[in-house]
């Protein structure tokens, strides 16, 4: 047999070639070419992304990829962000850290999302990995400032410490002082989620001695009059998150601050702005034209002040803002910021029935018309119409992420009182590259028919209070070829569509259904017939065996896995599998 040309390449050459390919999907493809490529690839893989920490076990990961330097793990389902996943569900990173501490002594980066991390885990990280550089804990919980102190004290090569939106138990602000005096390698620090004060002097010294610091996100407790000092110590900053942006209006403080901002020639992104006093906003005017990212979503300032600010940010690519901006402000945005790619408008008062601001669908329509690069939208509002959605869709066929939240569930088109099926249908029809979609408003099964027909690139879909029958769910599961994550709450979807499309579930990362109508019997069936899925029933009313089999389960989380059922579940979660009939508890 003639030898294939590929197999005569020495391994070193192949390895060198592979080193140019970083993307995980590409590397997966490479590894399937032939056995020798598989071997070379797996020994040279340095970065791994595990979208569901229960899809694979640490041991399996380590066995296949022995030389990893960077790991990213995700734990709880997305709806955990909205308190739909009870505490104690899982997502513990402990076993991963323990395994990696032994297997990956040269590990440099750990990125976690929605996982439970303990102080012991953090301490183990700090002591096990001599070259540890990056720790990102996104929406994590379970640890305190003690764990952070261990990281600060022991990770001599730390570059990045990012605690974005994690729930940290604040025990003291002194953890920051644990960074040794000769530690200078900090590049990125995000402590915006911390509730209590950190030691300001320690912070100032730290900032002052780290010349490579690019990102600094302070927490609310850092007062405004400290900000100028910090900025002067780090004029090379690229991204800044202020602390509380309020103080008595004093000209000396203002000019100090303004001067400090002007000195930051590299500053491209701003965030923070808690409790904004509008009088201090002009301090940032000098740098507005350079800004590409602006997060004002905690800034409770009114439309006129927002307009003054935003109209100066001609290079803005990303804006997060509260609905105080109103339609008028969004009109200005549409006129001023032609490079805008991402817009998120959050509700200032979401629990009131009556709108408190003059923000409607119009604002979004304006921005969709005026900003040709707009591709990512998260928009909370109180009214929407099919006509508006159609217009948005036609304006922006390049939309890739569209999340609309009409605050009141099942709100119809406010003009015609019809469901919003046609509007969302237009979105999926025109925006052919749509990857992520969140629905709201009054929706029948028809919208799912549209989605199944048109949304061929859709990867993640969030559905709430929508649909009428299993047909809706069937349309999604049978039509959306690239669907990876589906999360559903309070929809009348039951067993039929799930069971009829059971095989589809193995092609997705996960499915979440809560307050729907999937019966315990159907869950058991799925679990028994599809061993490569974990079918988890979450029900706080006690074991489902104590209710009829047709009784719907409260919550259902199905995900594909090669690791089999997990064993770290609390007593209100059960995995359905072949043994579920036998195991009663």
């Amino acid at each position, binding site marked *: 047999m003639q030898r294939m040309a590929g197999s005569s390449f020495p391994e070193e050459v192949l390895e060198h070639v592979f080193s140019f390919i970083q993307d995980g999907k590409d590397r997966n493809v490479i590894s399937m070419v032939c056995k020798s490529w598989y071997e070379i690839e797996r020994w040279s893989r340095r970065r791994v992304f595990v979208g569901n920490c229960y899809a694979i076990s640490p041991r399996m990961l380590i066995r296949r990829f022995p030389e990893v330097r960077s790991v990213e793990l995700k734990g709880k389902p997305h709806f955990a962000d909205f308190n739909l996943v009870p505490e104690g569900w899982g997502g513990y990173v402990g076993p991963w850290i323990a395994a990696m501490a032994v297997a990956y002594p040269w590990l440099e980066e750990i990125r976690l999302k929605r996982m439970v991390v303990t102080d012991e885990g953090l301490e183990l990280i700090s002591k096990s990995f001599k070259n540890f550089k990056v720790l990102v804990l996104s929406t994590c919980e379970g640890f305190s400032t003690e764990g952070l102190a261990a990281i600060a004290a022991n990770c001599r090569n730390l570059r990045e410490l990012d605690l974005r*939106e994690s729930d940290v138990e604040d025990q003291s602000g002194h953890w920051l002082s644990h960074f040794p005096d000769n530690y200078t390698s900090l590049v990125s620090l995000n402590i915006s989620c911390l509730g209590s004060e950190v030691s300001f002097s320690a912070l100032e010294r730290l900032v002052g001695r780290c010349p490579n610091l690019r990102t600094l996100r302070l927490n609310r407790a850092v007062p405004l009059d400290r900000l100028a000092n910090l900025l002067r110590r780090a004029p090379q900053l690229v991204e800044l998150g202020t602390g509380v942006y309020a103080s008595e209006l004093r000209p000396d403080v203002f000019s100090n601050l303004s001067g400090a901002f002007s000195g930051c020639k590299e500053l491209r992104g701003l965030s923070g702005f808690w409790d904004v006093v509008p009088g201090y906003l002009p301090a940032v005017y000098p740098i507005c034209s350079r800004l590409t990212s602006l997060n004002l979503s905690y800034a409770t300032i009114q439309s006129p002040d927002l307009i003054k600010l935003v109209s100066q940010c001609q290079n803005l690519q990303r804006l997060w803002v509260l609905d105080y901006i109103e339609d008028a402000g969004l009109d200005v945005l549409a006129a001023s910021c032609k490079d805008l790619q991402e817009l998120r408008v959050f509700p200032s008062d979401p629990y009131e029935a009556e709108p408190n601001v003059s923000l409607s669908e119009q604002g979004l329509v304006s921005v969709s018309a005026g900003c040709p690069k707009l591709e990512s939208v998260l928009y909370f509002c109180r009214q929407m119409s099919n006509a508006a959605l159609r217009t948005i869709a036609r304006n922006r066929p390049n939309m890739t992420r569209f999340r609309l939240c009409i605050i009141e569930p099942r709100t*119809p088109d406010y003009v015609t009182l019809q469901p919003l099926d046609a509007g969302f249908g237009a979105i999926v029809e025109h925006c052919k590259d749509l990857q992520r979609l969140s629905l709201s408003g009054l929706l029948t*099964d028809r919208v799912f028919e549209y989605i199944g027909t048109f949304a061929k690139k859709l990867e993640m879909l969030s559905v709430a209070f929508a649909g009428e029958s299993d047909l809706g769910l069937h349309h999604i599961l049978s039509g959306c070829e690239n669907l990876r994550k589906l999360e559903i709450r*309070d929809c009348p979807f039951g067993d039929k569509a799930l069971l009829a499309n059971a095989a589809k579930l193995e092609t997705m990362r996960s499915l979440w259904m809560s307050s729907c109508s*999937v019966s315990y019997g159907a869950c058991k069936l799925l679990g028994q017939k599809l061993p490569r899925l974990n079918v988890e029933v979450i029900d706080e009313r006690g074991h489902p065996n104590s209710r*009829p089999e*047709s009784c719907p389960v409260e919550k259902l989380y199905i995900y594909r896995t090669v690791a089999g059922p997990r064993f770290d579940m609390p007593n209100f979660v059960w995995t359905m599998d072949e043994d579920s009939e036998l195991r009663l508890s």
Partner: protein
Amino acid sequence: MSPPLLSAEEGEQSNVSLVPSSPNMDCISQSGSGLKERNYMGLSDCSSVDSSPVSSLSEGKKNNLNLKATELRLGLPGSQSPDRIPELCLLNTGKLDEKPLFPLLPSKEGICSSSQKNVVSGNKRGFSDTVDGFSEVKSSVYTAGNWMYHAVSDSESPQSVGQGKFPGSSGMNVVLSSRPSGAQSPIMKELPTKVMQECPRATNGTSHSNNTDTNGNSSAPAPKAQVVGWPPIRSFRKNSLATTSKNNDEVDGKPGPGALFVKVSMDGAPYLRKVDLRTYSKYQELSTALEKMFSCFTIGQCGSQGTPGREMLSESKLRDLLHGSEYVLTYEDKDGDWMLVGDVPWEMFIDSCKRLKIMKGSDAIGLAPRAMEKSRNRN
């Protein structure tokens, strides 16, 4: 054994009657009307969907029952589906109509059988070739809008069978005999009116929604009950906004925004829980909810052999446990001090409570005097 009374399984799955929230009922009623008239290919009858969100419950229920006929069923030998017992259905109005809505169509038989043969050989696990009665329906079947009809056909097959599998499942009989008076049957338990007191957590997404009618039609003058996790805003943002608005407008008198989740720990429990203090309006409600939430641990503690959660062991016994001073409820206030729950007015309590802890009575000695002193100092 008589079939368990609570077995309102047939058709209950998709009719959502077990889920109490009226919005779901709305959906069902709409689907009910849709079942009569829907043309899946044509776009004409878009208006078959009623915009009127508030539907009569009886109508919804009636349509629900008709969906019984559309159930896909697992074929098991020798079981028949027992008739539904109307009285125990959640929203039954006595108008029971179990006839399927649509007559049998000859075409659907063909569909049924052909789809059952349609084991897609390419599939690794063609679901249909492993399970009787379920069919992996090809998309072509669905385009003609026959899906519902197809499903109906299953009910005619001799395999139609109660999903209850009563003979096989011993769990249910146990439930019936030993269900304590306190805890309701799952169906009854989810009556919206009862839910708030009984199991605020258990009916997470649905318990509150009976007030949040669509179109904001809630005529209740009281503050709108909130649906858990809706609108979808992260806790960090919610809490930030809450603090800001509290700073800004405290005189309003309107209810505080959003949820107020605090952690609850219990001595000896392996993990913490979270409760939303705003879902309660007095201490009694909070106490009951916590008892339910942590009952499993307490049961474990007192050495009962029952598997936790299996039977929500008699709550009276549990209450005795908790009130028998074996455990006390404490909280950490804004100053970081641990106080006994119950001394200050409820509003003041939720204003200052940062977290809760269920302590052993012995550990809590010494808290009481401090609490009194503090409230004295405050006033």
